[in-house]
């Protein structure tokens, strides 16, 4: 119902609206409410064969693949065969991402970056997925999968240089912070335009099949961004041509201030994949083991000619959307604490400790070590230049790469800039 109109102007009667408008899981002053999330117990879902018929994944699409139980034990058919060493790698990467995010966020607050975006609470998604993929697989991420870069070994100094647009920025000062690109690591240039990469990833995968190659593509999109047409196009093309691609939806409950209910249509995101005849799985995105297992399975499907898999990763965006917003303005400040799937770092740590392969002390030491190494990286990065003081790339470099070879009219514009410099 509309509130009644009050204004200095004469107020005509408002309509008695019958329109349904979705609600949020919480708004400031309200208690968090995650009742509507379906969260089955760990180990409850079957693991089907690689050539499963799409319709046979209905349970997986409406349920939730979970491996770690409340005690930190790995249970059920999806439990992956990962050595303790690999698990520790995963934990290290997640902690590394977290240390990086914290540093960069603080640096933004100090004016050293123009902007930053954290992935706090979602680290398992990118880290476990990158570990389950091959180095030759092409990644089409959003701005919230920085973990992919950590697993693939990108030097943090390079990432930082990009974020401060200094002389060491591989993107030559052109892009906002966090819109990374890293060809060497098969990490596609992140676009400011949401979801465009999703359908491009399908084209990349089609080309891989066209060339008879075995590389697959993996694409990510946020819950809110599933609303974009590119996601429809991606699903349609992936299914039509059985492209070897993983289509991941990172459902972290929020799209800036807008709840997932404005994109989910009241069912799971994974369910949408079934409508396109794509095998679809909903997975606990804060469960490192479950994310790894589902990704490994989907990648094997793609590599063996069974086509795309649609994966919803259920997680929670603990921090604000970016440095530009304060989430307390649009959701209960205790919502993160009420999130029923916990923290991915804490859960993997618990598992490793349960296995006897990790300890609180090791954990604390690792955190310290990573904090120090990130601090050292930051020093190394700003030694190559800062956002405000430089050195930057030469200003005239902005005219490069518009085309492969600079046409005469751009050279004339460039000359004007060079003259002024």
């Amino acid at each position, binding site marked *: *119902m*509309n*509130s009644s*109109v*009050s*204004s*200095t*102007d004469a*107020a*005509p*009667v*408002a*309509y008695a*609206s019958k*329109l349904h*408008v*979705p609600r*949020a899981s919480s708004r400031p002053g309200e208690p968090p409410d995650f009742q509507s999330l379906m969260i089955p117990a760990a180990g409850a879902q079957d693991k089907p064969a690689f050539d499963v018929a799409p319709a046979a994944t209905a349970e997986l699409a409406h349920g939730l693949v979970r491996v770690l139980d409340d005690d930190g034990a790995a249970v059920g058919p999806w439990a992956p065969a990962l050595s303790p060493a690999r698990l520790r790698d995963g934990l290290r990467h997640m902690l590394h991402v977290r240390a990086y995010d914290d540093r960069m966020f603080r640096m933004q607050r100090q004016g050293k970056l*123009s*902007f930053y975006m954290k992935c706090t609470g979602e680290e398992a998604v990118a880290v476990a997925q990158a570990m389950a993929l091959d180095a030759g697989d092409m990644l089409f991420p959003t701005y919230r999968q920085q973990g992919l870069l950590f697993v693939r070994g990108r030097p943090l100094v390079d990432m930082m240089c990009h974020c401060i*647009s200094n002389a060491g*920025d591989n993107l030559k*000062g*052109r*892009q*906002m912070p966090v*819109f990374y690109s890293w060809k060497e690591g098969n990490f596609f240039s992140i*676009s*400011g*335009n*949401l*979801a465009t990469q999703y359908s491009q990833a399908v084209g990349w995968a089609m080309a891989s099949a066209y060339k008879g190659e075995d590389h697959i593509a993996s694409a990510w999109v946020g819950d*809110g*961004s599933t*609303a*974009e*047409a590119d996601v429809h196009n991606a699903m349609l093309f992936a299914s039509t041509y059985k492209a070897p691609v993983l289509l991941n939806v990172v459902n972290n409950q929020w*799209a*800036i*201030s*807008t709840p997932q209910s*404005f*994109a989910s249509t009241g069912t799971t995101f994974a369910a949408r994949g079934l409508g396109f005849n794509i095998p679809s799985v909903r997975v606990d995105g804060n469960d490192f083991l479950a994310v790894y297992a589902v990704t490994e399975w989907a990648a094997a499907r793609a590599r063996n000619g069974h086509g795309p898999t649609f994966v919803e990763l259920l997680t929670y965006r603990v921090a604000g959307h970016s440095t*530009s*917003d304060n989430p307390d*303005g*649009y959701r209960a400040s205790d919502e993160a604490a009420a999130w029923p799937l916990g923290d991915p770092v804490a859960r993997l740590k618990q598992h490793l400790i349960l296995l006897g392969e990790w300890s609180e002390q090791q954990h604390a030491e690792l955190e310290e070590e990573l904090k120090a190494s990130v601090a050292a990286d930051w020093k190394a990065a700003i030694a190559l230049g800062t*956002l405000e003081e430089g050195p*930057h*790339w030469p*200003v005239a470099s*902005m*005219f490069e790469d*518009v085309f492969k070879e600079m046409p005469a*009219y*751009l050279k004339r*514009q460039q000359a004007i*800039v060079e003259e*002024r*410099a």
Partner: protein
Amino acid sequence: MTTMSMVQAINSALDCSMARDPGVLVMGQDVGYFGGVFRCTEGLYDKYGAHRALDTPIAEGGIVAAAIGMGVNGLRPVVEMQFADYIYPAIDQIISELARLRHRSGGEFWAPVVVRAPSGGGIRGGQTHSQSPEGIFTHVCGLKTVMPSNPYDAKGLLISAIEDDDPVMFFEPKRIYNGPFYGHNNSHGGPSTWATHADGEVPEGHYTVPLGKARVVREGRDVTVLAYGTMVHVAEAAIAHSGVDAELLDLRTLLPLDVESVAASVQKTGRCVVVHEATRTSGYGAELVAEVQETCFWHLRAPVERVTGWDTPYPHAFEWEYFPSRERISEALKRAVACD
């Protein structure tokens, strides 16, 4: 009379319009509960409810399509695109549908939709939060295109746009949302907030500024400057800086263009400089040059020059070198008056 920033003036225009007409609603990403990423719809959700300050999915094409359907069904939706850079997913609905509907249906159907979009640089937003795509829309018959340069005009033009029965593209220069702007170092000496700027005085109630009418910001004899949005202020600063006696026109509406005012001024001064932040080639400045050239050829004593953004994406690190600065405009003015 009170003072308002441009954000507040836009908010006030929406508020007035919603209060007067229950068919007016605002819709877009984060415009409801949150009040918009630039705060233009703040308070409307509380005042008018979730149906009239309507949050939407992140699907620009879907938003405009829904607005068209609503418009056909008698409402006056005001759509917010979160950034003008994200208007492209909606462009088929805008160009092929919104703009053409009245004509193709022989006048049977139309949709009085306003599409608001923050445009231009100013927040270090890089290439996807800084674009000025207005030129594209001026090439589309059936659309009106507006860009205000100050709070007073913003409110009056937006109310006109909402009350207009034709679709209107309404671009809001985000750089001057919260204060006027005169160039890189802001050293014009002019007021630095709207609160102390004459055009920051905005009536609280309903008023309109007509679409299709330019405003003479400053009279002058030697050269005419055509500008809109942020560039009006930078041009003003450049005029002061250069010492050239220029006449400055704030176009306000790009289509339909106020050709009479443009021609009258250029026929008087005999010289013209066109300024915009958008990329140069085939930008709206080209249309202005062509128009001036066609209507004032025999009066022109110097080539009409364009001072614009470069033909590159808007670079994160080089906003200032990209931006058509006070100095670049100032030099163009001097070149113009040097001709005789």
